[in-house]
């Protein structure tokens, strides 16, 4: 990440605090979030693959 981008990010975020909590539950396997990811996947699959800037959406294996 460029240092200029880092500076801009810090300006945007201001005094907002994010604390890493190693004991916090990982919610990635929650049924709700898995369902939302499946919905997003389906939505992207149905969408046109070419974006306005010329880049292309490509499906991959995770």
């Amino acid at each position, binding site marked *: *990440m460029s240092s200029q*981008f*880092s500076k*801009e*990010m810090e300006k*945007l*975020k*201001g005094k*907002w*605090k*994010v*604390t*890493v*909590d*190693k004991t*916090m*539950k*990982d*919610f*990635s396997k*929650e*049924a*709700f*979030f*898995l369902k*939302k*990811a499946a*919905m*997003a*996947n389906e*939505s*992207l699959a*149905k*969408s*046109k693959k*070419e*974006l*306005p*800037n010329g*880049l*292309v*959406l*490509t*499906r*991959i*294996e*995770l």
Partner: protein
Amino acid sequence: MHLEKYDCQTTADGESFTFESVGPKGVIRKIINYQPLPWLIGSIQVVNLAFGDWNFETRSIDELVVSNNSDRDKVLATIAFTALDYMAQNGKVAIHIKGITPAKTRLYQMGINAHRAEIEQLYIVYGQLEEEWHPFESGHNYESFLIFKK
């Protein structure tokens, strides 16, 4: 963009965030999660942003709850800042956003629209309309959004 927002806790991998919404309905635990999706934009990984309330009785996420805790803008600003944090930690990623209902998608749209000038200084925002992607503009009801670093 020095908005009022809630401080958050995050997991070591930075894929889940949590914070407490405080208002007339009490203290509500909010959960935000970022899930990698099997899609790339060019070489940029697409991840899905999802958000819900933690139900302490069922020990699961409430899908359709509308908490009405009189802090909508503060909650939206907090979600936006977790997205900035996630993108800052993970480098080149594109964030996909789609509410579980059209009403929830419109809430995200209002949040993007309210801070569009600041967001677009650093990020490209596209909205999906009838399967096509367009540069984000006010006055459309988009079905989903893609946001990534310029």
